[in-house]
């Protein structure tokens, strides 16, 4: 019972329950959905979203937001795909992609942390610039003909799970422990929870924000290489809208946009929900055109319910405090008669 109470208090609890409920309902309508193969496909399909959401979560922890990862993903995917197509080794392509992420993340971080530009505006601007650069790089053409051996990497794995997804989960757990247990990792949430307080106790706020943006862009770059391996081609609009999907995944997973609240596990489940929706629609016999509608309804419902519950909790706590106070006063008056008593 105690364990259950603890679980329900956790932020990601509602999203986990929601995921299971969703799967159960779809399973009742179409039992084929709950086959092991299909669930593994859902998990594998969530790899790119999950990595993006992990990076995004780090930025959102510090109370900022990064709307540029879609373009970062598109540009590094285009560069990595064309390098692999032209015969360079995939490790080199990955390194170059990470370098692109480092540069874009540093620009974002410099603007937000050092110049104090509001993060949404800075990153929307950078998104446009990077998107334009990737058009210049590809010349508006598709990058195709990625060699077969590179595409096959995404098919390899264990028990139907690809190595990529297993690796993602392992890294997610490592980052989760770093962020929740380690001294430097806890800086991220400390900065987002109370920035002035963090400055006063000597946390390097500027550096923390900068690092969060760099890590977010690097995550997008790593995701881009997996994207190339999974999809096999890159269009000029690849990665469009990933920033919004990643933000939505974080929010569905219980991470508060005001910063400091939430954790990586929630983000992972949020990403899984986001990635499963289009597959679920197919199994329900609906057109996957309704993907956006469902995503929108889901996002608004979860966030609004969460806000209402929190409001109720605050109100309840206030009432309890008030009741305790009046009880104390009444007791005091009964006991003390004319004596003065401390009402607190």
């Amino acid at each position, binding site marked *: 019972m105690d364990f259950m109470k603890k679980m329900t208090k956790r932020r990601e609890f509602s999203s986990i329950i929601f995921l299971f409920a969703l799967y159960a309902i779809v399973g009742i309508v179409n039992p084929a959905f709950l086959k092991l193969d299909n669930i593994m496909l859902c998990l594998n399909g969530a790899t790119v979203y999950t990595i993006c959401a992990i990076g995004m979560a780090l930025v959102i922890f510090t109370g900022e*937001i990064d709307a540029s990862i879609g373009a970062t993903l598109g540009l590094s995917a285009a560069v990595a795909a064309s390098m692999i197509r032209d015969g360079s080794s995939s490790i080199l392509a990955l390194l170059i992609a990470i370098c692109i992420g480092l540069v874009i993340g540093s620009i974002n971080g410099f*603007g937000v942390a050092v*110049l*104090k*530009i*509001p993060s*949404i*505006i*800075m990153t*929307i*601007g*950078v*998104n*446009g*610039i990077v*998107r*334009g*650069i990737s*058009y*210049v790089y590809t010349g*508006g053409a598709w990058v195709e003909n990625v060699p077969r051996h590179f595409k096959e990497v995404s098919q390899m794995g264990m028990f139907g799970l690809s190595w990529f997804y297993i690796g993602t989960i392992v890294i997610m757990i490592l980052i989760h422990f770093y962020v929740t247990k380690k001294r430097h990792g806890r800086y991220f949430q400390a900065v987002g929870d109370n920035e002035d307080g963090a400055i006063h106790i000597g946390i390097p706020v500027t550096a923390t924000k900068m690092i969060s943006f760099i890590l977010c862009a690097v995550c997008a770059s790593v995701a881009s290489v997996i994207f190339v391996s999974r999809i096999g081609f890159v269009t*000029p609009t690849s990665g469009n809208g990933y920033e*919004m999907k990643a*933000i*939505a995944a974080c*929010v569905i997973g219980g991470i508060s*946009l*005001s910063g400091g609240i939430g954790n990586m596990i929630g983000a992972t489940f949020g990403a899984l929900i986001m990635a499963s929706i289009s597959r679920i629609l197919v199994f329900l016999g609906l*057109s996957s*055109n*309704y*993907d*956006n*509608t*469902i*995503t*929108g*309804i*889901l*996002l*608004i419902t979860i*966030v*609004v319910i969460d*806000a*209402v519950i929190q*409001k109720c909790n605050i109100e309840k706590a206030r009432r309890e405090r008030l009741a305790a106070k009046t009880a104390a006063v009444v007791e005091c008056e009964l006991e003390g008669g004319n004596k003065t008593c401390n009402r607190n």
Partner: protein
Amino acid sequence: MQQKLKKNYKKLKFRWEYFLVLLLIVEVVIFGTLNPRFLKPQVLFGSVNDFISICIIATFMCFVFITGGIDLQAGSIVGLTSIIIGVMWKYVGVNIYLACLIAIIIGCLCGALSGFFIGFTGVQPMVVTLGGSFLYSGLAIAVSNISKTAAYLGISGFPEHFTAFTKKRFFGVVPAQFLIFLALVVIAYIILHRTKYGRKVFLCGINQNAAGFTGINTKLIIMSTYIFSGMAASITGIIMTSYLGSSKSDFGGDLTMPIITAVVLGGTSTLGGKGGVVGSALAAIVIGIMRFGLSMNGMPNQYLDIPVGIMLVIVVAGSCISKNQKISALLHHYINIKN
């Protein structure tokens, strides 16, 4: 001291809008010298058709920014209203102007729904409008599925008098939608800067709690700003449908970034409490002319995000640096040394 500050602030504000006018003139001169065809009144005013949607939405979007919010859903409301006009007219059989009215009402309702959640439950505006942008673009696709025409074809064949309106040119050069835009700017200016309601909007942005304590219904005020922005988006949807002669569900999908750029470039603070209608409208025109001029001088359409993005970052960085006391003190120090 305070009066001095106030004076300085007023001066700065004026200067900002003057600066935008200056920027506009510089742009026209540069593009005019690069390509003399650009200066023809026919071409110059004709270009307004390309970016009128940014102008109209940005003018009303600054209401939302002034209350400290942000609105990412306007683009998808444009598509939704456009497809609703088409379906209403062709498959339900209502009069085209009645369909437009219905579209405006639906645009207002979309804004009201998001505004309700933002105002009354206190969820961050970004999340709700992000969800709204998914929801309304999805609804637009759902509505277009009703129409049984392929989504990429759109619904066309509107009556002549409906499409002719936006192709009309007053005095031979000024397109009708430019006049609509001017009228909307005047209306927005009066609402925001000359009425009690406008003052309440500003106060909500400066300090929502204080506004609440003075007896202002802050929740309703915040909700109303989103209704305005939804209304502007639906008017844009009508104009686009009329001008292009077809209604499609994906109109306006790529408007979000230019709109936010225009509002911010217009001197409206994203933290709320500062800004103006005239600045947003001017900035939207500056961006539109820049995009038009660059593409006229042979820059491919897809590259246009680069200069707009660079402009956005530089302008915001400049205004943030000028606010930063440490850096401005350093600058003053160096200027003094030089003198």
